[in-house]
């Protein structure tokens, strides 16, 4: 197992122990973890994470299939957003974080010392809960990453193709100079997706991408997720069980209980998960008996 410690954190073992805090209660990995067939986008193994000594993920291990939608579900505080942010090293930006374990992406551990986190985040884009367009024009929002990265191709084509892929082009093509902030919530979220797509990523991580949207805008984003899954790997955190059932191919259920924080309880094809979950805790959560 490789170990990655934040460069801002102390590097000697005793300090590292202090940062991790008390050892986690004995954790046995779940037996109810499916192994997806075919190409994998990520292979996560024995992933542990602490925020300033407080454990947030415990022994998480699962394989995320390529060009499919994988949903992470679970009650608040179960570690699903933390796990999502581990997939593109977004947690590195949080002071006092310690991460152990491996996240293999394209045959390399993204927490390896030789890996550039900025490049990781370019390949693995992210869409957040609240649409966060820059206070710039629609065009400039989409072109932003390309300009920063020194894109040498045709910027107009890139903006158009990205907006088309995000199913926004028809609504904005005549007004690309309009501020991104002037769009509706659902349009803003699709603009953020277009902005992520313009960086030519492999993977798009979505952290509750529809929770700030109305039902119609939500369904448009869900349709878009299904369309995008033909070319991209999508991992989505959602509190909406029906959404996970509608859009995802695989679903992971995470839980924090009295003993263990941020553990993976069950991982299965979505159809199985929502009709015949193997674990009673999954059953209780998805049928609304707790959480």
């Amino acid at each position, binding site marked *: 197992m490789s170990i990655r410690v934040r460069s801002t954190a102390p590097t000697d073992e005793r300090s590292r122990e202090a940062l991790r805090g008390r050892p986690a209660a004995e954790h046995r990995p779940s037996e109810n973890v499916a192994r997806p067939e075919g190409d994998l986008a990520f292979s996560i193994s024995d992933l542990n994470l602490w925020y300033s000594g407080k454990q947030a993920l415990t022994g998480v291990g699962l394989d995320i299939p390529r060009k499919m939608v994988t949903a992470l579900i679970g009650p608040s505080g179960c570690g699903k957003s933390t796990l999502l942010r581990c997939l593109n090293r977004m947690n590195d930006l949080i002071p006092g974080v310690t991460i152990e374990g491996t996240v293999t992406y394209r045959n390399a551990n993204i927490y390896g010392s030789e890996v550039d986190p900025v490049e990781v985040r370019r390949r693995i884009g992210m869409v957040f809960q609240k649409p966060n367009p820059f206070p710039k024009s629609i065009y400039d929002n989409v072109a932003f990453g390309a300009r920063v990265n020194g894109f040498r191709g045709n910027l107009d084509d890139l903006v158009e193709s990205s907006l088309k892929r995000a199913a926004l082009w028809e609504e904005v093509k005549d007004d690309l100079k309009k501020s991104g902030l002037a769009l509706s919530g659902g349009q803003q979220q699709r603009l953020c997706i277009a902005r992520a797509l313009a960086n030519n990523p492999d993977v798009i991580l979505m952290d509750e991408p529809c929770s700030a949207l109305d039902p119609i805008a939500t369904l448009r984003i869900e349709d878009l997720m299904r369309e995008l899954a033909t070319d991209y790997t999508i991992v989505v955190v959602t509190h909406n*069980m*029906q959404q996970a*059932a509608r859009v995802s191919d695989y679903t992971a259920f995470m839980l924090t209980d009295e003993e263990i924080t941020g553990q993976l309880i069950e991982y299965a094809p979505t159809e199985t998960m*929502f*009709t*015949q*979950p193997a674990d009673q805790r*999954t*059953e209780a959560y*998805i*049928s*609304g*008996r*707790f*959480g």
Partner: protein
Amino acid sequence: MPRELFEKELAELQDDVLILGSMAEKAVVDSVEALRSADLEWSQRIIEEDLAINKKRFDIEESALFVIASQQPLATDLRAVMSALMIITDLERIGDHAEGIASINLRLGESEDLPRRMGYIPAMADRAIAMLRDSLNAYVERNVDEARRVCDADDEVDRLQDAVYDEAFRGMIEDPTKIERNTYYLWTAHNLERIADRCTNICERVIYLVTGRMEEINVSKY
């Protein structure tokens, strides 16, 4: 976090399935008894009362659809609602088979005034009715073993159906004037055999409800 309203709706749904089950069972018991006693008025009432069975089925279907729309059930809850929807279809069809037996009695009444040829019919009826009761018990108790036992009992009903075929065809050959009477004998047995098959369907739904697996338990030869 309990879901009191949802739990109540699921319990009501199951109660309604059992009410429909008892309506279907009464129709089967009565249809065979009316046939045995050549009571045409009784058979006429059974046919009219089948409308109530059909209506009850649609009422339950409406309730189940509303539960799906309003509560969005998942996992066991979803299987419970779906099983109820499937089971009421079988129960409604069992009612139709009882109506079929009642119609046979009326046809016999038009053509002849003889004692009905019952032969193996009471034995088949006893077994089919027992299968219906036991399948609904398995449903209420979520009892997979009991459901499988009920399915096994279908073999005996099939065996009796074989015996009816033999007897009826022999009767037709021996005395061609009794072809019509033996045909009704066959039809009655066929209705009872279909009732038993519907009970195995109910049991398959019980197994699905409990285990999440869809299994074809017992393929009837008819």
